[in-house]
């Protein structure tokens, strides 16, 4: 009979032990964005854990996922980019090659989903004259109407894998990243006729595009995965629509403040170690000011996005870490000293957008 007892104890322990985890989802109410920034967390593939969080400058605290709090559902898989335009947040989500992917439109104040549009592998977003332009790896740039949130026009691009974009005058510059193949060009789209008017050779792995006040366009080129020494910044003269020069620095992400470009890069070197670099370029002469704008030795595991606060020149670097734990946002002063660090409360932070009241 002793064994009987043992058996029951054993059985009972299995039942008890296998009880569900009682944790409930972290709660979050909608926030009223005033002084702070939204953080887009890309999430991992195929984990459906993209999220949108908010850092408040007044309370110095970061929210939990606002999208899920406002909409009960999850944002989706692999968020790529977002912008705030008018009173709306536009987010691209690309789910890999089996794509029926989306452009999500949210109300900025309630973070409620207003519309979800189907766009194949949508990548980056820019706004222009009441319209939204979305690049897509189906080799088009989509023009979206901001009243109906639906596609107005599909603009075919002759390059492969349209990626980052910038607008100068009425010209849209879109980097042809290569997508799932290879390419090394930037396409120029005329926003009046909504057609591609030119293609400019810039280098392999063109990724992010920014423009400065002088009308020069800066394109980060990451190389072609086998020869990382090809990584550089290509400078396009928008008046000539021609390559002006190249700056030989490792470059993945880029943002501009005071006619200086702040760049982050994560490229592997020949010894299989990741080479991480934070070059700073003076855009008036296209000269390298610093090889590393971070001056206090702060180590970031995986720089995944860079945004400079236009109001004060603070530089924000997103650390995606290992994509298996929540990322962090590092804030540096213009001198490159760490000002503060916060969790992004999500996996793989890739972009922040500032909000001021």
């Amino acid at each position, binding site marked *: 009979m002793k064994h009987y007892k043992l*058996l029951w104890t054993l059985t009972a322990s299995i039942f008890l032990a*296998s009880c569900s985890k009682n944790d409930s989802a*972290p709660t979050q109410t909608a926030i009223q964005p005033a002084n702070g920034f939204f953080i887009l967390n890309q999430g991992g593939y*195929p984990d*459906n*854990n993209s999220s949108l969080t908010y850092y408040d400058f007044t309370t110095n605290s970061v929210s939990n996922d606002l999208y899920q709090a406002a909409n009960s559902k999850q944002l989706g*898989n692999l968020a790529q980019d977002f912008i705030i335009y008018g009173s709306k947040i536009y987010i691209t989500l690309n789910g890999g*090659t089996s*794509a029926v992917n989306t452009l999500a439109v949210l109300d900025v104040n309630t973070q409620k989903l207003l519309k979800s549009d189907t766009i194949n592998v949508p990548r980056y977003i820019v706004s222009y004259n009441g319209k939204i332009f979305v690049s897509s790896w189906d080799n088009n740039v989509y023009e979206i109407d901001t009243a109906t949130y639906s596609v107005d026009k599909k603009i075919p691009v002759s390059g492969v894998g349209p990626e980052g974009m910038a607008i100068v005058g009425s010209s849209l510059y879109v980097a042809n990243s290569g997508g799932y193949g290879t390419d090394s060009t930037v396409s120029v789209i005329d926003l009046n006729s909504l057609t591609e008017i030119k293609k400019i050779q810039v280098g392999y792995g063109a990724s992010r595009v920014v423009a400065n006040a002088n009308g020069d366009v800066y394109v980060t080129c990451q190389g072609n995965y086998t020869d990382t020494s090809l990584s550089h910044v290509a400078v396009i003269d928008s008046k000539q629509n021609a390559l002006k020069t190249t700056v030989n620095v490792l470059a993945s992400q880029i943002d501009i403040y005071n006619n200086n470009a702040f760049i982050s890069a994560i490229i592997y070197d020949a010894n299989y170690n990741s080479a991480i670099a934070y070059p700073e370029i003076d855009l008036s002469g296209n000269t390298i000011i610093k090889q590393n704008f971070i001056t206090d030795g702060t180590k970031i595991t*995986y720089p995944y996005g860079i945004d400079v606060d236009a109001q004060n020149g603070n530089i924000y670097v997103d650390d995606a870490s290992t994509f298996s734990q929540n990322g962090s946002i590092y804030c540096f002063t213009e001198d490159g000293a760490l000002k503060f660090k916060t969790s992004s409360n999500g996996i793989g932070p890739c972009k922040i957008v500032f909000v001021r009241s």
Partner: protein
Amino acid sequence: MRQSLIIFLYLFFSSFLHAQEDSSHHLKEVEVKSIKSNYAAQSITPVQILQHSEIQNINGNNIADAARYFSGVQIKDYGGIGGLKTISVRSLGANHTGVSYNGIFLNDAQNGQIDLGKFSLDNVEQIALYNAQPANLLQTARAFSYASVLELKTIIPEFNDREKIKLKASFNTGSFGLINPSITMQNKINNKLTSSLNTDWQKANGEYDFTYLNGSVTEKGRRTNANINAFHAAYNLRYHVNDSNVVNVDAYYYHSQRGLPGAIILNGGKGTQRYWDDNFFAQAIWRKKLSPKSEFLINGKYNYVYNHYLDTSSFYPNGKDEDIFRQNEFYVSAVYCYRPFSFAQLAYASDLFYNNFFGKDSSFTKQIGEPARLTILNNISAKLFFDRIEIEGNLLSTSIQNYSDKSYNVRSYQAFAPTVALVYQPIENIPLRIRAFYKNIFRIPTFNDLYYSEVPNTTLKPEYAKQYNIGLTWMQNLVNTFLQNISLTADGYYNHVKDMIVARPGTNIGRWSMHNDGSVDIKGIDVNAKLSFLPIGKLSYSLNANYTFQKALNMDKTYEQTYKNQIPYMPKNFGSFNIQANYLSFSFAYNAVFSGYRYALDQNLYSNLLQAWHTQDVLFSYKIQSSKYSSWRIVFELNNLFNKQYQIVWYYPMPGRNSKIGLYWNI
């Protein structure tokens, strides 16, 4: 009954370790079962065994469905009939578990993992799981080279004097559009030579409905692009001169093509990926006793693997992404075992195998090139037997030379790995035994680890797993009591993994590279109870319960947020429970599995949480003896009775309630 008990006791006390192999087919099923479960409790290293009769009462199609009833085991199951199923023992990961087929190890040099879903339960005689290694010294060196070993043995044909040919046919059908006919032909060529050919065809659309949680909303979905068409044929030729001289030859062929349904993607579309899979191997084993003191074992194998992966998504520049891989393995092994004294046994094993790999066309296969590897394993082992104590130790030497047709800086490896184990019975008449082992073993980086990532890291080091185990076993057979056969085992263990091979993101999220970054501490307890009871009239029944508690903590201090977090996909609590009952020609089984909550990512946060799950299955069968030589058996399985919706791998939904009916005919 009394007679068989005497036979049993004789076997048990005289030579319990060797009894199980040679004498089994002289005994009836019931006795065999008792001996085997006793063997499990007496083994110097922990072992769990499922016999054919038990396997018949387990719901499922493949080895993975059976292996999840072993304690300490996690089956990583991507769901459905065609979904990848790999085994991880004591949180060490699939690459640390060797899987052997009739004595010789299966191998995939490319990814190091064996898909257990490919092996049907149809023709399996026995599945055994050994922690550390099988206790028998007459083993290939390779058997000592894993952290644990899953051993498959196919049915050996048995004939009585007048039988020449036996035929078994079965047909299974049920949920997921399953059609699964199988034919086995066994042939007695002469008194010493028998053959068996087992063929099995499986076709299914693999589709099922599921629900899942999206935030706090329950959503419905259907798993599509999940069809599978698989065929397998296994030929066995056995030349059995006597129990001391046996040659065993196997030829095995597997072919499948399947859709890969992929994960649920909230903003995604239908899967566009297909996968073709061919495997052929031929192997031979010769075991001969030269004298009562000495014995040898010679093995040889050729293995061929073909994988073809195709993604027809329109987003690829040519409208597709395609990879074709081929692998060969040539393997030879010789073992010599000598018993100089009645209390000591020594063995030496030497294995040599050569693996090569060919890719075709795609950018990835261009990068991986045509690597090859030569592995030489040498193992020396010794065992000492005393009255109530047995000690075993071995030292394995591994020498590996890598070759690459690329300009990669390939490295060679040379390492020694020791194991010591003992079992001790403190008091003579009390069937309590204490067992313990220590094993320090490693896994060599696979071809994928070395070459297939975005930036090949050909300087990867082996991943080491140190294992400590201490356990108690209680095994007892009683006469005319309520409980007839008791086998209880409890083991506590500590594993430490260093230089763990982990993927870290490369220049973008889709491209990763491998690093020796991780370190994991695993502390666990495995408890197993196997009980058979005195029949109530014509109702006989038995019970099996397993429970595992384990803390598998990430000890990598590089990341503060994940330090000492439970590693992904390892539940702290896991258990299984089986009841089998027979009444006349009816039999019934209840099989249940329970898993605690897990995390899908390194950081133990609610947002990475995978909920606990359990499944409960029942099985009914009825046997008809239609004539002296032919019998029918009809089996009905109802799986996941309560339609539990769950995921083992994040966003790979598992099937809900499903059923299967099978008809088996023996002649």
